[in-house]
């Protein structure tokens, strides 16, 4: 077990616990963005930074990746940290000012939108949650980062139709800025995509990965309920009988 001080409160945690987890145990809130409890820590957004004093040195580290060490003193909201978090969020908010998640964080941290800099067209803040989710939870690795630096963005290979995507939508669920555009288009309906194309239902479209998946229709009620490809993937992964997903969840109950 490791014993350390967080904001002058002593806490004992199992070895391997991160500072973020340790703080959460004693009810201390640290803002996060790229962190997700179901995904491996990334340490990229730098919102969760804290000051760690180890002996004579004080360092600023991301609490989501730093594993607790014996005897360290952690400060989660010193003046320096608060000022830095504001600075980081100011930069991010200017990137995607319309993101509800960023706006909420801005309100919590007392940050105002600055229009000095042009926002990003693609709404992506390179937090990597979609990529990690696709790799670690879904297991298909359909997407990854393209480029480096400011141009860095989550992308399908060659920015073309991802052939590995199964249309499960997990990436959409974890994206904090709404950068991933998913449309479930019902039968008979028609939607115009952001590139001007018109698509007819019943189909699931994820614009960013240039994929569109026809829905599987329930053999009982006839309603389209999930992308065909996704169901085929789950059937294979879990070694289920081929007709397992012929009937939708409602009809099965």
């Amino acid at each position, binding site marked *: 077990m490791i014993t350390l001080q967080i904001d002058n409160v002593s806490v004992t945690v199992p070895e391997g616990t991160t500072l973020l987890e340790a703080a959460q145990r004693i009810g201390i809130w640290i803002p996060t963005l790229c962190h997700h409890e179901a995904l491996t820590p990334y340490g990229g957004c730098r919102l969760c930074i804290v000051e760690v004093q180890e002996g004579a040195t004080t360092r600023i580290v991301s609490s989501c990746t730093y594993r607790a060490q014996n005897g360290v003193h952690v400060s989660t909201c010193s003046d320096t940290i608060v000022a830095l978090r504001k600075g980081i969020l100011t930069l991010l908010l200017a990137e995607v000012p319309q993101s509800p998640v960023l706006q909420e964080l801005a309100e919590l941290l007392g940050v105002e939108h600055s229009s000095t800099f042009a926002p990003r067209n693609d709404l992506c803040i390179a937090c990597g949650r979609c990529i990690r989710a696709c790799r670690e939870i879904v297991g298909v*690795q359909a997407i*990854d980062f393209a480029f480096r630096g400011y141009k860095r963005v989550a992308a399908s290979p060659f920015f073309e139709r*991802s052939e590995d995507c199964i249309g499960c939508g997990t990436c959409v669920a974890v994206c904090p800025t709404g950068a991933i555009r998913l449309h479930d288009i019902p039968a008979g309906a028609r939607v115009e995509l952001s590139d001007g194309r018109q698509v007819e239902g019943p189909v699931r479209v994820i614009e960013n990965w240039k994929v569109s998946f026809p829905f599987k229709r329930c053999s009982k009620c006839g309603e389209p309920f999930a992308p065909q490809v996704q169901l085929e993937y789950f059937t294979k992964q879990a070694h289920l009988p081929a007709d397992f997903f012929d009937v939708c969840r409602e009809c099965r109950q």
Partner: protein
Amino acid sequence: MSSHQTVTINTNTHSHEPPSLIALLQKIQEVNGYLPQDALKQAAAEHGIPLSKLFAIATFYNAFSLIPQGKHIISICHGTACHVQKSENLNAHLARVLQLAEDEGTSSDLMFTLKKVRCLGCCSMAPVIKIDDTVFGTMTQAKAEKLIRSVEKGMPP
């Protein structure tokens, strides 16, 4: 941080030195002159690597090109020593000569690709350009243009 503490690191369960994907891409580019989409797709399928990972690596590093390059590569050095000797003006001039829309790119006749590099390490002769494997120093706009014209005519640089 204690320097006397002995820490045991667990061995990985799979072969702990998997082949380098960078080396794979370097080989593909060596053979093709660039990284063709089909070659990457084939490599991904053959080696069981996610295509998204190959694309991530291919777009991360300066050395890789996803589009065909010109017959001759002109590298213009933008190291600090070359910069203070007006490499930006030299670059602009060469882009004009090759009729490129930007500072870097490939001429429409696919003869030349102009790219920025930092740094070639020949600072005593700044500003420096490299045409294919040969380095040329103490360049001026006029000298560089003359060189390109002679390479165009088929004379070795």
